[in-house]
C-alpha cells in the first residue's frame, strides 16, 4: 500500500498488514474522524512527537503506573506501555458496540443465574450437562447459593477485534475479575494531558460518569444499610494488576483489603480494623473465585477468607462478581450463545461471535478433526494450559499428534475460526507503524441493566504483523476515544471540559449516593508505621553516608580526619561497613568500595539501598493510602538510590546522596502537609518519631559521647561537629549560641531542647501525643495488661529522664539514661504491634 501523505499526516504509513486499518481506508484515504483528529494535532514532526511521548512516559513513571509480570527480570514492576495516539471510534459506531456489550452482559448474567440455580437450560437440553461438569470453573459449592436480585455479573469486560468486514467481533469475555478499567482511566489521564488541545477539540466522551455510576451501584448492593462498607479484595502487591487495584480503590473511594484483612464471624464478613471488627457489606473482588474461600473452594488458598461462602449463603454480604462467575469465561460455552440469546432474551445476539466448536460433543469433535487446517485450537477453559494452536501452521505429524490429543480428552478443546485483527497507527521511533489492535470494553451493572464505559483499553501488538495481543507478550496500550455522534460540530466549548483530563477521585452526586465508611485495616496501619520507620532510617543513613563521603572525597580539610574517624566509627556501629575500616589507618582506597556498598548494595542488609527498598515495599503495600505526589516522591527516591554506572567515582556517590536528602525531606514534608490527621497519619508519624528518637540515642552511644566529650583531645570538637551535622542542627546551634561548638550547649540542643525539631525530647513528646491519640481511638487490652499504656509509660519515663537537671553535665547519668532508652524504645514498637497488629497476622494452618 502506498504511503499516506494526506492533510495533517506528513509521515509515511504502511497500512498493508491487515485488510482493515482504523485510520486509512483500503483506497488509501484518511477516514474522516481521523482527519479531524490529525488536523487538530497539527503537523506531526518527529521531534515534537518524541517530546510528547517523553512527556507521557514521565507522567506514567511519576504516577507509578505499572504492570507486574511473574518471573520478569525487570523485577516486580514493569512500566505501563502507552502509545499516545488514541484509537478513535465514531459515536455512531460506538452506539452499536455499547448496545451489543449491554446485551451480552445481560445474557451471560442470565446464563450464570440458571447454571448456578435451576439449570433449566440443561434440563431442556439447550446446553449439554457435560459443558459444566467437564469445566473446573463450574464451582459446585456456589450452586444453589442465592444471589440478591439474581445479579452474578456486576462488572464485565469483553475483548473485541475488528474483522475484515469492518464489524467488531467478540474474542473473549472476562467475567471472573475483569481487569483493565483502571489502566484505561490512567491512559486517559495521561493522554488528555499530553494532547490536551486535541482532546478538547475532539469532544471525547468522559469516563468519569461511568465510575460514578458504578460506585453508586456498589453501595446500593447493600439494601437496608445506610452506610455500607464496600471493600476491594486484592490478592496483594505481587499480583499482575495491583497498581490497578489500588488505583480503583482510591478512585471509587473504597477500602483496599487483602484476604487476611477480613474475617468471618457468625456468618458475616468483618474488616479487621484498628478499632476492632467492622461489618463488610459488599466485596468487589479482584481475587479469582476459587481462591476466595479456603474452607469450601481451594483448600490451599492463603489469599481468601475462610467462611466467605457461608456468609454469602446467609445473605449477609454481596460479592461482586458472584463467586462462580468465572464459568462464563470458558471458550466451551461460546458456540451456544447465539441460540441461547434468542431463547433467553428473545433477540438476536448483536455482537458477532467467532464461530467455534466445543469438542466435548461428538459431531463437533468430528468437524474440528476434519477442519484442523482452517481452525485455531484453544483450551476449553482456564484450567487447560494451552497457547492457541494455529492449525494452518502445523506440519502433518504435528496435526496427527494434535488429533490424538483431541480424541483423548475432547472436552478440553475448542476449535475456532481465525480472525484478522484490524491495525491502528502506533508511534514507533520516529514514525507511524500499523499494529494489530484489540479493544477491551467494560460494563457495570447499574440499576436493572448495564452501563458501558464510553471508551476502553485498546491493546496493541508489539510489532507489525504480530497477531498475539497481550500485555504479557510485550504489547502496548492506547487510550480509546469515543467521538460525538454528530460528525460536524461547529461549536467547541473549551470551558466545558476540565483542564487536566478526567480522572479525579469519583465524587458521588450529592443526595443520590449513600456515604460509605472508610476504615484503616490493621495491616495498612502496620504498613504505614513501617513506612515511617524506614523512611526515617533512610534519612539517617543518607546523612551519615553523605557526611562520610564528603570528607573522604574532599580530603585534607583541617579537622576532617578526626570527623571522618568519628563518622567511620558510627558506620561500623550501625553495621554499614566492616569493623576493620573503623580504625584510623584505613585508606581511602579501602573505604570507598565499602562505602559504595553501604549506599548501593541491595543485598547488604543495612545499606541505604536495602532500606529504600523497604520503604518502597511498605509504600507499595499501602499505596491506596498515599497521595499521588507522595507516591511520585517514593518512585524518585527509589530511582535515586540506584547506582549511576557512568558517573565518575566521587560524583557517583555524592550526587545521589544530595538528591536523596532532598527527596526524603520532600516525602516528610508531604506527610506533614498533605495527609489527613487520621489514624493512618498517626501510625506513619509514630513510626517516624520512634525511629528518629532511636537514631539519636544510637548516634550518641555509637560516638561514645560520654567518654569522648569528656576527654580533652581534639576528638571532642570533631565529635560535636559530627553530631550537629547528623542531627541537622548546625544552623539552629549557630543562631542560638553564636559561640564555638561546646559540649554543654550541643547536648542541651540535641537532647533536651523542646523547640528543636531534631531533639530527642521533641521526638518523645510527639510520640507520647500520637500514642495517646491511638490508645484513645482503640479500646484495647485489660486493666492488667494494656500494651498501649505500657508504651506510653516508656515514653513518659524517657521524657522525665531527659528533664533531669544534671543530665548534660554528668556523663555517668547521661550514659545510664541513653542505655535505658536504647533498651526500652524498641519495646514501644513491639507493644504497638501487640496492641494493633497481632490479630491481623494470624496465618491459616
Amino acid at each position, binding site marked *: 500500500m502506498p504511503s499516506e501523505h494526506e492533510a495533517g499526516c506528513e509521515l509515511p504509513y504502511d497500512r498493508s498488514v491487515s485488510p482493515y486499518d482504523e485510520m486509512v481506508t483500503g483506497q488509501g484515504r484518511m477516514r474522516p474522524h481521523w482527519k479531524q483528529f490529525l488536523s487538530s494535532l497539527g503537523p506531526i514532526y518527529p521531534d515534537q512527537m518524541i517530546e510528547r511521548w517523553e512527556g507521557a512516559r514521565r507522567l506514567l513513571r511519576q504516577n507509578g503506573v505499572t504492570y507486574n509480570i511473574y518471573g520478569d527480570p525487570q523485577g516486580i514492576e514493569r512500566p505501563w506501555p502507552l502509545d499516545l495516539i488514541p484509537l478513535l471510534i465514531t459515536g455512531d459506531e460506538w452506539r452499536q458496540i455499547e448496545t451489543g456489550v449491554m446485551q451480552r452482559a445481560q445474557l451471560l448474567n442470565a446464563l450464570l443465574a440458571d447454571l448456578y440455580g435451576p439449570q433449566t437450560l440443561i434440563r431442556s437440553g439447550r446446553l449439554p450437562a457435560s459443558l459444566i461438569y467437564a469445566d473446573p470453573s463450574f464451582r*459446585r459449592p456456589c450452586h444453589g447459593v442465592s444471589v440478591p436480585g439474581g445479579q452474578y455479573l456486576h462488572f464485565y469486560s469483553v475483548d473485541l477485534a475488528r474483522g475484515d468486514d469492518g464489524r467488531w467481533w467478540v474474542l473473549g469475555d472476562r467475567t471472573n475479575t475483569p481487569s483493565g478499567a483502571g489502566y484505561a482511566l490512567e491512559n486517559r489521564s495521561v493522554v488528555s494531558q499530553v494532547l490536551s488541545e486535541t482532546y478538547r477539540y475532539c469532544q471525547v466522551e468522559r469516563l468519569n460518569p461511568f465510575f460514578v455510576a458504578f460506585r453508586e451501584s456498589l453501595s446500593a448492593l447493600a439494601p437496608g444499610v445506610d452506610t455500607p462498607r464496600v471493600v476491594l479484595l486484592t490478592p496483594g502487591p505481587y499480583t499482575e494488576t495491583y497498581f490497578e487495584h489500588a488505583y480503583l480503590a482510591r478512585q471509587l473511594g473504597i477500602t483496599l483489603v487483602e484476604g487476611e484483612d477480613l474475617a468471618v464471624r457468625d456468618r458475616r464478613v468483618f474488616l479487621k480494623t484498628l478499632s476492632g471488627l467492622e461489618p463488610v457489606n459488599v466485596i468487589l473482588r479482584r481475587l479469582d473465585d476459587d481462591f476466595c474461600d479456603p474452607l469450601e473452594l481451594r483448600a490451599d488458598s492463603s489469599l481468601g477468607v475462610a*467462611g466467605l461462602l457461608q456468609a454469602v449463603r446467609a445473605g449477609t454480604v454481596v460479592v461482586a462478581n458472584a463467586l462462580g462467575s468465572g464459568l462464563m469465561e470458558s471458550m466451551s460455552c461460546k458456540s451456544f450463545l447465539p441460540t441461547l440469546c434468542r431463547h433467553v432474551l428473545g433477540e438476536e445476539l448483536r455482537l458477532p461471535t467467532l464461530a467455534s466448536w466445543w469438542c466435548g460433543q461428538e459431531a463437533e469433535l468430528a468437524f474440528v478433526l476434519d477442519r484442523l487446517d482452517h481452525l485455531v485450537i484453544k483450551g476449553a477453559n482456564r484450567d487447560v494450559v494451552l497457547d492457541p494452536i494455529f492449525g494452518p501452521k502445523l506440519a502433518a505429524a504435528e496435526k496427527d499428534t494434535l488429533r490424538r490429543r483431541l480424541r483423548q480428552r475432547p472436552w478440553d478443546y475448542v476449535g475456532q475460526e481465525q480472525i484478522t485483527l484490524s491495525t491502528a497507527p502506533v508511534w514507533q521511533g520516529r514514525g507511524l507503524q500499523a499494529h494489530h489492535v484489540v479493544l477491551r470494553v467494560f460494563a457495570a451493572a447499574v440499576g436493572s441493566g448495564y452501563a458501558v464505559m464510553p471508551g476502553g483499553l485498546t491493546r496493541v501488538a508489539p510489532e507489525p504483523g504480530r497477531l498475539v495481543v497481550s500485555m504479557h507478550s510485550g504489547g502496548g496500550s492506547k487510550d480509546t476515544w469515543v467521538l460525538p455522534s454528530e460528525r460536524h460540530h461547529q461549536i467547541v466549548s473549551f470551558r466545558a471540559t476540565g483542564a487536566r483530563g478526567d480522572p479525579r477521585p469519583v465524587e458521588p452526586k450529592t443526595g443520590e449516593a449513600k456515604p460509605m465508611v472508610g476504615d484503616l485495616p490493621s495491616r495498612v496501619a502496620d504498613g504505614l508505621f513501617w513506612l515511617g520507620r524506614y523512611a526515617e532510617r533512610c534519612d539517617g543513613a543518607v546523612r551519615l553516608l553523605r557526611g562520610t563521603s564528603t570528607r573522604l572525597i574532599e580530603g585534607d580539610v583541617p579537622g576532617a580526619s578526626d570527623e571522618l574517624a568519628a563518622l567511620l566509627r558510627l558506620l561500623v556501629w550501625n553495621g554499614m561497613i566492616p569493623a576493620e575500616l573503623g580504625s584510623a589507618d584505613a585508606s581511602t582506597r579501602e573505604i570507598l568500595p565499602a562505602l559504595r556498598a553501604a549506599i548501593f548494595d541491595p543485598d547488604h542488609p543495612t545499606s541505604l539501598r536495602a532500606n529504600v527498598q523497604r520503604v518502597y515495599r511498605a509504600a507499595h503495600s499501602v499505596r491506596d493510602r498515599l497521595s499521588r505526589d507522595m507516591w511520585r516522591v517514593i518512585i524518585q527516591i527509589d530511582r535515586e538510590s540506584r547506582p549511576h554506572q557512568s558517573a565518575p567515582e566521587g560524583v557517583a556517590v555524592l550526587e545521589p546522596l544530595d538528591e536523596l536528602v532532598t527527596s526524603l525531606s520532600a516525602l516528610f514534608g508531604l506527610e506533614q502537609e498533605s495527609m489527613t490527621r487520621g489514624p493512618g497519619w498517626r501510625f506513619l508519624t509514630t513510626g517516624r518519631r520512634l525511629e528518629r528518637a532511636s537514631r539519636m540515642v544510637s548516634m550518641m552511644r555509637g560516638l561514645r559521647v560520654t567518654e569522648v566529650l569528656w576527654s580533652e583531645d581534639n576528638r571532642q570538637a570533631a565529635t560535636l561537629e559530627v553530631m550537629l551535622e547528623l542531627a541537622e542542627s548546625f544552623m539552629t546551634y549557630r543562631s542560638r549560641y553564636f559561640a564555638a561548638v561546646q559540649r554543654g550547649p550541643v547536648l542541651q540542643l540535641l537532647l533536651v531542647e523542646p523547640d528543636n525539631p531534631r531533639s530527642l525530647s521533641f521526638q518523645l513528646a510527639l510520640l507520647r501525643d500520637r500514642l495517646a491519640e491511638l490508645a484513645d481511638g482503640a479500646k484495647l487490652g485489660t486493666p492488667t495488661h494494656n500494651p498501649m499504656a505500657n508504651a506510653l509509660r516508656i515514653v513518659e519515663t524517657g521524657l522525665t529522664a531527659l528533664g533531669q537537671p544534671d543530665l548534660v553535665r554528668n556523663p555517668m547519668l547521661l550514659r545510664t539514661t541513653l542505655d535505658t532508652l536504647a533498651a526500652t524504645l524498641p519495646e514501644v514498637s513491639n507493644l504497638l504491634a501487640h496492641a494493633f497488629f497481632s490479630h491481623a497476622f494470624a496465618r491459616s494452618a
Partner: protein
Amino acid sequence: MPSPDRPDRPAPPSPPAPPPSPPALPPSGAAVRYRARHRTRYDYGEDVPVSHHLVHLATRSHPRQRCRRSLLTVTPTPAVRWDFSDYFGNPVSYVAVQEPHGWLEVASEIEVEVRPPPPFAAAGTPPWGELRLLAPALAGADEATAIGQFVFDSTLIRTTADLADYARPSFVRDRPIAEALIDLNRRINTDFAFDPTATTVATPLAEVLAKRRGVCQDFAHLAIGCLRALGLPARYVSGYLRTLPPPGRPRLVGADVSHAWLSAWCGGDHWLDLCPTNGRLVDADFITIAWGRDFDDVSPVRGVIFGGANQKLLVQVDVEVIDE
C-alpha cells in the same frame, strides 16, 4: 440384576434442605443395625482465636441404607452451626468456634441400618465398551448430575495414559462391565501393599501407581482414575467398616478409621460398590457416609484455623452391631 446402589435424586438444584426422610427399605436381605462413633480431636499446640470446619459425618440414606439417628457434637460448643446439603446431596455441617481454644473435638454418633446387596450375575452386565464415553454425552440434567459428572477429572484425580494402561488388562474387549470391575479391584488388592506410612493426603496418584503402596483412599482414587481414564464414571465413597467381623470372618483392613471405596457405574441406574483395599465387593459390612468425585469433595472434617503450632490430630472410629 446387579447391585442396585441407586443414589437418591441428588439434592441440587433444590435449595439446601434438611436430610430427606428415610425411604422404605427394599424387602430382600437381612438388615444389619449399627451404631458408629467417630471422634476427631485436634490439638493446636496453643490457643487459636477462631476455627471454621466443614463436617461430612452425617450419613446419607440410600436404597440399601437407612439412617435412624445422627448426632454431631462439637466441643467447645461452636458459636455457629449450619447444616446444609452439598452438590452431591450429602449432608454437611458448617461449625465455627469463635473464642480462643487450644483443641477441638468433633464427635459423631450415628445409628444406621444396612442391607446387603442382592446377589447378581456379573456376566449379565453390559460390555464395558458400550458404556465407555456414553457418560459425557448424557443429556438429561438428572442423569448428568447422577452419572455424567463422575467421568471427568476432579481436584485430586487427573487421568493419565499410565492409569489407562494399568486398567487395560482387566478391560478386555466385550467383557461385561462388572467382571472387568471385579478383576481390576482384585488386581489392585494384589498389586498394592497397604502401608499407612507410604502416602499422605497430598500424595499424587502417579506416585501411588509407581510405589504400589498406599491406604484405602489412595486405592479408591487409583481405581476411579483407572475407570475415568477409560471413559467410565466412578464415584468416591467415604464411610465405615464394622469393627468386629461376623463370627468366622476375618477383621477387615481399615476397620478402626474412616474407610473409602469406590462406586462404579454399570449402566442405567446401576452402580457397583467395590473395596480395593480388601479386594471384595461392598456388602452390609460397609456403612456409606458420603460420596463425591474424590476425597476433596467429602473429606470428613475439613478446617481452617488461624494460628496454632505443632498441630496434632487423633481420629477414632468404632462401629458396633446392635441387636442383630
